[in-house]
């Protein structure tokens, strides 16, 4: 059963299945998590959705010229956090963030200097999991609760995670959050299509694997109105590759060799 669910979660990244169905097939655990009433398991949904978006390695280019102010960025964060049931914790120490904004000096700490361009200095940068090619978190995880899909997405199995937080120490981008207490009372409006989490597990951005599986772009990309381009980094004909070819882009901490899949046009 456990194995099946895990296989299924992996599959969800590469094949089609709506998130609400995840709750059904995996039985009690997620049904309980999402609060939805469990219907009878239907194994036919494991078949691949024809509309599913697929890639060899998903990646993203964020055009910071088109995201100038906090008000440009907030709808993107809201879109992600709403559909993924990300709670708004009152205690800053217990914050859960999948995608958020940071200043240049924090995002590119090693490139910060006193003469940095005024626009960049005050620009809000969107940051999220980099879905590294060589993810240190996946290496560190002692249970494979965090793993990399064939399409390069770094995912979490919330039901296998033991909450050791080794992945948080391993991540050089601060992209992971831990549920220091039950997050459910802090979710304003629960999206029944996606599981909520319990206390004691780590979570982070999943590149909207559940949306790709049904042919939708990630929520932040959709909300960005063209400021973020998402696509297959290994496909030379993809739009994301075209944008990378036409613009000079930078990545966070390239010296660490993690192979971040998020590129910034600055």
């Amino acid at each position, binding site marked *: 059963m456990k194995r099946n669910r895990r296989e299924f979660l992996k599959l969800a990244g590469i094949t089609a299945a709506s998130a609400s169905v995840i709750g059904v097939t995996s039985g009690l655990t997620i049904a309980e998590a999402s609060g939805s009433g469990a219907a009878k398991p239907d194994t036919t949904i494991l078949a691949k959705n024809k509309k599913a978006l697929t890639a060899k390695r998903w990646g993203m280019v964020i055009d910071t010229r088109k995201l100038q102010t906090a008000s440009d960025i907030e709808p993107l964060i809201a879109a992600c956090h709403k559909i993924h049931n990300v709670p708004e914790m009152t*205690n*800053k*120490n*217990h*914050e859960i*963030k999948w995608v958020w904004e*940071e200043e240049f*000096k*924090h*995002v590119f*700490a*090693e490139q910060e200097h006193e003469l940095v361009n005024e626009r960049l200095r005050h620009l809000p940068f969107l940051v999220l999991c980099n879905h590294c090619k060589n993810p*240190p978190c996946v*290496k*560190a*995880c*002692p*249970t*494979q*609760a965090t793993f990399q899909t064939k399409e390069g997405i770094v995912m979490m199995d919330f039901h*296998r*995670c*033991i*909450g*050791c*937080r*080794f992945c*948080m*120490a*391993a*991540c*050089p*981008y*601060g992209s992971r*959050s*831990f*549920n*220091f*207490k*039950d997050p459910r009372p802090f979710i304003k409006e629960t999206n029944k299509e996606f599981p909520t989490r319990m*206390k*004691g*597990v*780590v979570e982070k951005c999943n590149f909207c694997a559940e949306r790709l599986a049904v042919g939708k772009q990630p929520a932040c990309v959709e909300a960005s109105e063209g400021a973020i381009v998402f696509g297959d980094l290994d496909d030379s004909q993809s739009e994301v590759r075209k944008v990378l070819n036409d613009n000079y882009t930078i990545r966070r*901490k390239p010296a*660490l*060799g*993690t192979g971040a899949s998020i590129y910034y046009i600055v």
Partner: protein
Amino acid sequence: MLELALKGSKKFYGWLIALLVMAGIGFAFYVWQFNFGLGITGMSRDVSWGFYIAQFTFLVGVAAGGVMVVLPYYLHNYKAFGKITILGEFLAVASLTMCMLFIIVDLGQPVRILNVWLHPTPHSVLFWDTLVLNGYLLLNIVVGWKVLEAERNGVHYKSWLKPLIYISIPFAVSIHTVTAFLYCGLPGRGFWMTAILAPRFLASAFAAGPSLLILLCLFVRKATNFDPGREQIQSLAKIVAYAICLNLFFFLCEVFVALYSGIPEHIDHIKYLFYGLHGHGLLVPWMWTSMGLMVVGIILLVNPGTRRNEGVLAAACVAVFTGTWIDKGLGMISGGFIPSPLHHVTEYAPTFPEIMVTLGVYAIGAIVLTILFKIAISVKEEING
């Protein structure tokens, strides 16, 4: 032999009851944490490991320190240590028990702990750490118990123990090496990313473990009819002297590399710990105290005049033990998280419930140590009497 733990004085029972009460209080706080989540601790998104993991790291050292009596006796045939190897082994057992408990209380989902072995993951250092820690624990229980039993019966221990004894020596080194590898292999954590981390962990282990053992020996001599021996204590003192010098030397090597290279990612953590960063300096007084205590320890231990005076020696051991505890049990772990990889300074201090859970674990360790030492010393008293 277990029956020997049951026959004790009123003081012995009083001490055990006091420890049980402390363990009970700690457990009550743990139940709270279990129900509420790790939010009752001082840990945060930025400082995601705190007091528990720091105690774990320090105690792995104390456990590894036990090998400093095993190695000279079994490899160099240094007979004097034959009298006290059992104390070193039982100290390791008690320390490792606490290590395991500190890992468990640190987990967000402790009931899933077996996932580590249900889904063995060789690329995770934590997987290896559970293996070497459990292996070393088992070796010390078996070797310690069997050798003591043979001693009680007046026979030589069984020959099949010999390979286990030899294996336990590299195992002791491995537990602290692997524990250092948990930290020093992580990209983006400049404070830990140094090849000297494992050697430094071992040096501080061989200082902290034997210095605690000296204090225990001095106590045993006073409280029981078994004298661990002056020569034994003096030899241990020399080991502590070398180890604490090495620990400080390794630390200074690290400081040199960070400061002279001038790479901010490496300097910032040291700056935070010893001078404060962006106006935050919670650990500054602690770190200087730690350095001061280690220097005092070195002066008192290297100088033969002071080392040979057992009263001064005891003070030096307290200084070394406390100094290394602050270094590893306070600074080493949270220091690696401050500043964060995004260069935010989020400070960390353990909360009251966190300290109570910690004291509870220490109480359980002390119970294990008391019972094992009681058995060992009763056997020694039997033989001498």
